[in-house]
């Protein structure tokens, strides 16, 4: 029982991080209908932004501390938001009218660029992420261990999800995002500045990816320039699983993938863990291709 609970907690923590990344994929897909392959690398850059910011922030604020940790988190999110806007402006916007496949290949190019530039600038060897938050053991009953870092993951994820929900449903720019995702041409005719909305979407998605990067680095402190590839793919799978373009679906998909993967590697075999996400994806797409919460799209002639 304790082992089951332990696996559940680990799975939820991993799933929450995937959910944050998946939201970025699903938002961009909802509006532009393409897979932003570089999203996983923005997640990586979020972790590296934290890595390089932490010593500088430590000069001003005490680290590890809750306040200092939050500053690192917010600063990394801001940096990646800007980066997301820059990537969209220079790589994707010129291709707005091109077939989606072209944009997909460009996204792969951007992804490779970020990875190799990362290897060049940061070095290919894994780096140890500094401790930015104090760690308190919360519970240690029998074999069960729960510490404050896992709680932080849950708390930060829930706050960010609620904030995102507020932005998308209650603000003017959120209404514009929904309008553009529903019908870009009609939204433009109604006076929505689609370029601004798309930039804003990239900023939002990249900030969430950066937050996921920091949360990841807190729990698994070895970071390297290629760390974004697999979490990125799994988060994309999570977005498809929940129904791509659907925000609650992405969060749900992330948690499902996270828990499934942790349980399979805990109870069956850890060597198969990287295949789990894809096996789940293929099963889901065979049964319900639009995803768990997605709407079925009918192709019209």
């Amino acid at each position, binding site marked *: 029982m304790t082992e089951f609970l332990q696996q559940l907690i680990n799975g939820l923590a991993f799933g929450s991080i995937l959910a944050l990344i998946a939201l970025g994929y699903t938002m961009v*897909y909802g509006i532009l*209908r*393409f*897979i932003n392959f570089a999203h996983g690398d923005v997640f990586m850059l979020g972790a590296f932004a934290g890595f390089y910011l932490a010593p500088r922030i430590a000069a001003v604020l005490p680290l590890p501390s809750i306040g200092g940790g939050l500053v690192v988190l917010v600063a990394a999110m801001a940096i990646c938001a800007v980066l997301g806007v820059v990537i969209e402006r220079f*790589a994707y916007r*010129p*291709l707005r009218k*091109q*077939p*989606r*496949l*072209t944009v*997909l*290949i*460009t996204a*792969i*190019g*951007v992804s*490779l*660029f970020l990875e*190799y*530039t990362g*290897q*060049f600038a940061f070095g290919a060897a894994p780096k140890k992420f500094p401790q930015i938050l104090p760690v308190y053991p919360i519970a240690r009953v029998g074999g069960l261990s729960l510490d404050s870092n896992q709680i932080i993951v849950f708390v930060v994820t829930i706050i960010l999800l609620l904030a995102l929900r507020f932005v998308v449903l209650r603000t003017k720019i959120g209404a514009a995002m929904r309008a553009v995702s529903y019908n870009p041409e009609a939204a433009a005719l109604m006076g929505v500045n689609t370029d601004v909305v798309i930039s804003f979407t990239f900023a939002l998605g990249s900030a969430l990816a950066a937050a996921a990067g920091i949360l990841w680095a807190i729990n698994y402190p070895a970071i390297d320039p290629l760390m974004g590839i697999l979490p990125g*793919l799994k988060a*994309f*799978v999570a977005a*498809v699983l929940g129904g791509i373009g659907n925000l609650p679906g992405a969060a749900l998909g992330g948690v499902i993938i996270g828990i499934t993967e942790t349980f399979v590697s805990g109870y069956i*075999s850890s*060597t*198969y863990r*990287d*295949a789990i*996400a*894809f*096996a789940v*994806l*293929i099963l889901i*797409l*065979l049964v319900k*291709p639009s995803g768990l919460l997605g709407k079925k799209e009918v*192709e019209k*002639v």
Partner: protein
Amino acid sequence: MSFRYAKTALTGAVVLSLLISLFANRLNSYWLIIGYNIGINLILAVSLNLINGYTGQFSLGHAGFMAVGAYTAATITNRFGDLNFVAANGIFFVALLAGGLAAAMAGLLVGLPTLRLKGDYLAIVTLGFGEIIRVILQNMNAVGGARGLSVMHGWTNFFWVFGLAAVTVYVVTALVNSTYGRGFIAVRDDEVAAEAMGINTTKYKVTAFVVGAFFAGIAGGLYGHAIQFLTPSGFGFMLSITYVVMVILGGMGNTAGVIIAAVLLTLLPEGLRLLADVQHLPGIAAERPLHWIGDTRMIIYSLLLIGLMLTRPQGLFRFQRQSR
């Protein structure tokens, strides 16, 4: 590619590769391996072009099929010791065919359930299948698992590589230029309309997957017997992306362009490596003035990719619009 001279070209290419293979042992092994890589990449890119270019299905799992072929062929030839020339080449041919057939089976397995998916979904599912193949190989102790598999015989030579490359080009060209093969292009251009005209789109998509996978498997066998060592991690999705890039740069559904792109993209990293090793440049005192290329050549590669997509999204080598 015009089909009129195809049979002559096929015979010519096979004879030429046979002739070159007679002199191949005079070449140094570095250039020999690059030559093999050119031919192997050519097979992979041209066969992927059947799926991605002519049939319009976006597959990101070609490296997975290649891995199936490589491991199957290597497992077969590893059962044999040293053989005489005729027996070795006979066994090698059978092993390559078996690798191709195993990969074709994998293609069938991927193709059948994923037919209902389109575009990005298909891309991500084929990517997933490729990753699943990699993870399964990593867990198969019979083929060495994550430690890798040594291939005992280096039976790959110029004749097999370029002869089979010529056969691949011939089969793919013959297929899409036949009456039957117009169906591939119909599926690409408008699936709904093709279906309405009575074309069995399902059958065409599966055929494309199976034929494409078959040649990828053969290329895998050739690769295994050239490099003589296989690791599952070598067949990750990065490798699939390399072949997709060749197809896109060549111009989707343009075999001649894809061949040129495969050759150029195989030579590009080697060329950059040579540039990085240049000892002196006129007018510059520093030794190895271009050594920075060595560290940044993959960055240059990715920037070239982005730049090409931004400036020539229709592919590097497509100069006329295809008639519709």
